[in-house]
């Protein structure tokens, strides 16, 4: 077989930062492969839904897809990449997660069973807190009805918040009517999902990010491809992380500026946390790393080893940023 038409199952809208870089990525693959690899996107879960994405790509229903680790037990071994207050730099977090996923045998074993291979991992930038009323202290957070997911929900409870679980798309109306007071969010997602219309306040909690998400390809298909096409897919996907991180960093300031001025008449006040206050927020997430290690140990893995490997990769990329800068800052 010399040409490939690949169906990509995405779960998000066809617009916004991530959609734009995804389309760049597909175009780039097409041109680098001289048109031998063409990628067709199905947005918004039209081809496969978030819950069954791993199986959909693993079976070949979709050739490629965007997976979210938190949605499925099948990727439980990637939980190390979604712990609050670990890393706020999207480039560092994405690269470190991708390296860890690619290198770690436990994670690779689990992926081999599902029949998918990761081509990259994604991180949406630092997690912030969207709210109806200003939240600037732990005390103000306490008692608020907080809609978060995964480890952020656990952290929210440790902050004294009331956990609310609703599907993310119900978040808008829940905030609007005060059914929830606060929502876990990210700056670019806030814009894409129009959440600023109902959250006049955003606290820059900078509480790390979830990077157990990414692009996967059907393993059998990938193995059957000629070496040059494999290399094109892999290289372009690594560059996709760089490009996304660059776009996120560049866009975050623009979006914050725009929201401060007002978009469609909706204005947002951003609250920065003083260092000592931020330390208190961070401290309430401290139990989550040992909790992760315990949980991993319980399921028969060496939790500490995975955590150490991830930490080492994070440190490696932090060093690169400190000494060489980002790949896009020549």
């Amino acid at each position, binding site marked *: 077989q010399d040409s490939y038409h690949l169906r990509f199952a995405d779960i998000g809208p066809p*617009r916004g930062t991530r959609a734009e870089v995804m389309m760049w990525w597909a175009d780039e693959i097409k041109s680098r492969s001289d048109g031998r690899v063409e990628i067709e996107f199905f947005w918004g879960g039209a081809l496969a839904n978030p819950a069954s994405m791993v199986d959909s790509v693993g079976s070949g229903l979709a050739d490629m897809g965007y997976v979210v680790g938190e949605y499925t037990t099948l990727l439980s071994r990637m939980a190390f990449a979604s712990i609050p207050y670990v890393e706020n730099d999207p480039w560092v977090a994405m690269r470190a997660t991708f390296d860890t996923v690619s290198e770690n045998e436990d994670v690779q074993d689990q992926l081999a069973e599902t029949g998918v291979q990761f081509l990259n991992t994604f991180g949406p930038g630092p997690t912030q807190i969207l709210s109806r009323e200003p939240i600037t202290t732990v005390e103000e957070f306490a008692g608020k009805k907080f809609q978060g997911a995964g480890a952020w929900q656990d952290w929210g409870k440790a902050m004294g918040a009331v956990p609310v679980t609703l*599907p993310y798309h119900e978040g808008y109306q829940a905030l609007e009517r005060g059914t929830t007071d606060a929502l876990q969010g990210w700056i670019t997602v806030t814009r*894409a999902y*129009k959440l600023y219309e109902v959250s006049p306040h955003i606290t820059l909690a900078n509480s790390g990010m979830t990077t157990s998400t990414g692009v996967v390809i059907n393993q059998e298909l990938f193995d059957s491809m000629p070496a040059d096409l494999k290399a094109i897919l892999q290289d372009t996907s690594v560059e996709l992380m760089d490009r996304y991180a660059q776009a996120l960093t560049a866009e975050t300031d623009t979006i914050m500026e725009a929201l401060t001025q007002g978009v469609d008449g909706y204005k947002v006040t951003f609250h920065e946390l003083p260092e000592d206050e931020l330390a208190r927020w961070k401290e309430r997430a401290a139990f989550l790393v040992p909790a992760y290690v315990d949980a991993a140990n319980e399921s028969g893995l060496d939790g500490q080893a995975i955590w150490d490997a991830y930490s080492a990769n994070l440190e490696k990329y932090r060093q690169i940023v400190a000494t060489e800068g980002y790949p896009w800052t020549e």
Partner: protein
Amino acid sequence: MDPMTLGIGGIFVMLALVALRAPLAVSLGLVGVGGMVLSFAFPANRPANLERGINIAWTYLKSEPYDAVANYTLIAIPLFLLMGFVAFYSGFTKDMYAAGRAWMSGLPGGLAMATIVGCAMFAAVSGSSLATAAAMGKLAVPEMIRNKYDKGLATGVVAMGGTLGALIPPSILMILYAIFTEQSVGRLLQAGIVPGLLSALMFMLYIGVRAYVQPGWAPRPGRVGWPERMRSLGGVWSVIALFTIVMGGLYAGIVTATEAAAIGAIGAYGISLLSRRLTPQIARGSLIETVVQTGSIFAIVIGAKIFVAFITLTGVTQILSGFFLGLDVAPFVVLLLIALLYIVLGSFMEPLGIMLLTLPVVIPVIEGLGYNLIWFGIILIKLLEIGMITPPLGLNVFVLKGVVGDEVKLETMFRGVLGFLAVDLVTLLLLLSFPAISLWLPSLLGP
């Protein structure tokens, strides 16, 4: 195998099975599975591999039936159905319509008009068309039939009134459209209010005129005197209390639009208990009737999901959209072609699936023509909602079939919808011709 041929062949086989009385859920689901196997077993330009086709369909079927129904937002449908059954068997609706009959005895089709008002009120609480039809079905249809209304009218009015649920906020479909097209959710929701009310008014106008011209369609009772009118008010408190609980809960921020249905069902039980009408038979029977209807409706939803997954794989939707949009015609004709496209797709697909598949193709065209995307959102919601009442796959009609049972045939219901559909197309034309109907309120309320 050419995917397009497979897709169109699949649609014909499905329709043939439906015509041969195969259960709708099975016709959709079986053709969907079969088509999925074929499309992977015999891919275009690649060697055949039957095992691959079977494996993929097998994996898909392992998760899809669960994923299709294990959706939090959907709980509004059984819970609103339950509310309706309890209210019906406790006799609240009988009292309400008796009062309606007494007070509106002079108004042709008064009870059907009142039903539209009820639908609009529930639309302001529930987030979807199906939930609105589920809530209003048992409250309204049996009482109109009891009052000798034409059966097609009695069911058609609720099937059509249900579609207001997606137009009048809250609306799940609108939120998803806004996110998909990067439009303001707030503005879009505001934009739905006037078109929603206009649609309701147009329905009422149609009811009034037709009932006046054709008295047998919605027979008027004889004049009712004032003493009887006043007496009839004694029984309406229960329905008013129910509405107040549900709407108050939502607008006070106590419950979400989904949870409002639970409050509605609890409220119905509570009021029934307080008014000493709740018997063990009513309590248990309502639960059982609700689960039977839930099973019946969602069997179809699952079948439809599987069928749509197959159609998605064949690319028929994208090719159809490309064809309609590729014609070199005047902008207004493009809009009419888009309307036609959605009405065709709406006959055998559900709104969300259609929206996800077509928007990436349709929106750039609409933007290219310089149209306002908020306005187009309203047009789109109306078009998608028409699909909810057209055969063969018209989910609102199936909900009503469930609540009225064997008394009214499915064909009668679809026929009853026809007149409303014609009126709705006029409303649609008005919305298309005068964008201000949609855009005026958001410009006024804008923050």
